[in-house]
């Protein structure tokens, strides 16, 4: 147990002053601006927005600057900031099928309407350090095709699922208001909407590792990347003052549709099932990890045996949040003097008792 302590104000203030100096680094090197982080460290910004669960690229860039590039610390800052703002309401659910696509690939269908579009990807790069970047210089302009892509590309699965061999995701006509983990605690069994919110906020590393574990045999579910898309989606909000949905603007979003083998059950014919992953900005690794885990967590619903960590809803959902996890792990650094003193007393007592028992036994043997 942590017990409140007093004092140390001056040491703490001095430590924070030093931290600020360390954050700035060598003053002979020009200071980073928030705009530079937002534009040139964009994927770090995207991760902070996703796991901070707040889309605002400028705030995420500021948080990264303040946190000296520490992602989890920046995510914590964003989570703390959001509590200072009032909520106006919830948006109309996003129509990702109407995304302005920058990248869209499918690993299961070669010929998809609109084609395989690589977009700005690290895939197929050689992962060799580019020393040209150490010297500054503008990259050549990216080539432009004569004919642009269509304004929207329909979802691969929706288009190519003519035989209905892949499970369909249909919006219920009267969808209940989805649970909101920012206002209510986790409960079990957790409905899928609750799981998806938890995973969307969840730590990328944790979900990546769990997803990987399913591939290596711990809850194997035979995944294929049905579709990965990244681009801009319009956000609409039913404004009470207007009486209609107003477009607030566009956000960048990544989406992964995982398609998984499924043998069928007593009620369902054999078909492919699906797992879903998404992230703010460009976050493919996160979206893929999330999709694998989403599917793994459907094990019970699909009548599969729950044997592995990635299929264990309580294990996954209780440990996915890196702000909670870092808080509980790092609180161990705070003074536990009283706690430890009492443990010391207990240990001393146990030793005394053990010694007395031994002496008594020796005395008995000598008689």
């Amino acid at each position, binding site marked *: 147990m942590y017990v409140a302590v007093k004092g140390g104000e001056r040491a703490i203030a001095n430590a924070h002053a030093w931290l600020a100096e360390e954050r700035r680094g060598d003053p002979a090197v020009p200071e980073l601006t928030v705009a530079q982080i937002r534009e040139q460290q964009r994927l770090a910004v995207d991760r902070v927005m996703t796991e901070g*669960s*707040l*889309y*605002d690229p400028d*705030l995420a860039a500021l948080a990264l600057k303040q946190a000296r590039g520490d992602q989890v610390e920046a995510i914590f800052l964003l989570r703390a900031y*959001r509590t200072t*703002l*009032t*909520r106006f309401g*919830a*948006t109309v*659910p*996003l129509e*990702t*099928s109407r995304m*302005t696509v*920058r*990248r869209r690939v499918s690993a299961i269908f070669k010929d998809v309407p609109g*084609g*395989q*579009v*690589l*977009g700005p990807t690290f895939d197929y790069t050689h992962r060799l350090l580019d020393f040209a970047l150490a010297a500054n210089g503008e990259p050549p302009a*990216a*080539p*432009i*095709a004569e*004919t*642009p*892509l269509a*304004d929207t590309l329909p979802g691969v699965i929706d288009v190519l699922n003519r035989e209905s061999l892949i499970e369909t*995701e249909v*919006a*219920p006509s009267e*969808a209940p208001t*989805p649970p*909101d983990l*920012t206002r209510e605690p986790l409960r079990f069994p957790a409905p*899928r*909407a609750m799981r*998806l*919110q938890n995973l*969307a906020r969840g730590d990328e590393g944790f979900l990546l590792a769990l997803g990987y574990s399913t591939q290596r045999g711990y809850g194997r579910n035979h995944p294929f990347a049905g579709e990965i898309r990244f681009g801009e989606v319009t*956000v609409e*909000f039913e*404004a009470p*003052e*207007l*009486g*209609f949905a*107003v477009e*607030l*603007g*566009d*956000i960048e979003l990544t*989406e992964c*549709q995982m398609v998984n083998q499924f043998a069928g059950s007593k009620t369902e014919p054999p078909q492919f099932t*699906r797992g*879903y992953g998404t992230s*703010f900005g460009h976050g493919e690794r996160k979206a893929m990890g999330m999709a694998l885990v989403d599917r793994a967590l459907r094990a019970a619903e699909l009548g599969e045996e729950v044997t592995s960590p990635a299929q264990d809803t309580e294990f996954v959902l209780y440990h996915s949040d890196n702000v909670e996890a870092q808080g509980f792990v790092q609180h161990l650094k705070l003074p536990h003097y009283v706690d430890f003193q009492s443990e010391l007393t207990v240990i001393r007592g146990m030793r005394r008792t053990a010694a007395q028992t031994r002496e008594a036994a020796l005395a008995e043997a000598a008689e």
Partner: protein
Amino acid sequence: MKSDHDAKNRQRRLAALARSERETLEDALDRIKPPPRYDVVKPAETGLVMVRGRAGGSGAPFNLGEMTVTRCVVRGADGALGVGYVAGRDRRKAELVAIFDALLQDPERVGQLESDVIAPAEQRRRERQDHVLARAAATRVDFFTVVRGE
């Protein structure tokens, strides 16, 4: 009672205004002589909306994460209420959108503003979008499947 057509137009204009740069709107307002009068009914306020996604992209809604939004309500000289909702935290921009929303409800101004402010904003968006889509199209590939074991 406003017609559906009016509501559709207002929706389209608000979408164009929300995607405009603050400076562009500021300049457009400066060009209006004499400067239009308006009262602030609800001062610009930054808050959050919860962005909803759908399971599998098309299924039941879930809460994906929040985003910052700023809103403002003004009343124009003719009594029309102007409403501004914009993504982000720019309070002046939300106020400018509200001002233009009020002005655009004036039948004597709407024609001019449509061609001076809304049409250029829609065109800029189209151009930005086409630029993205043309670069994306340049990265379209054909993967050839190589038959294994031959």
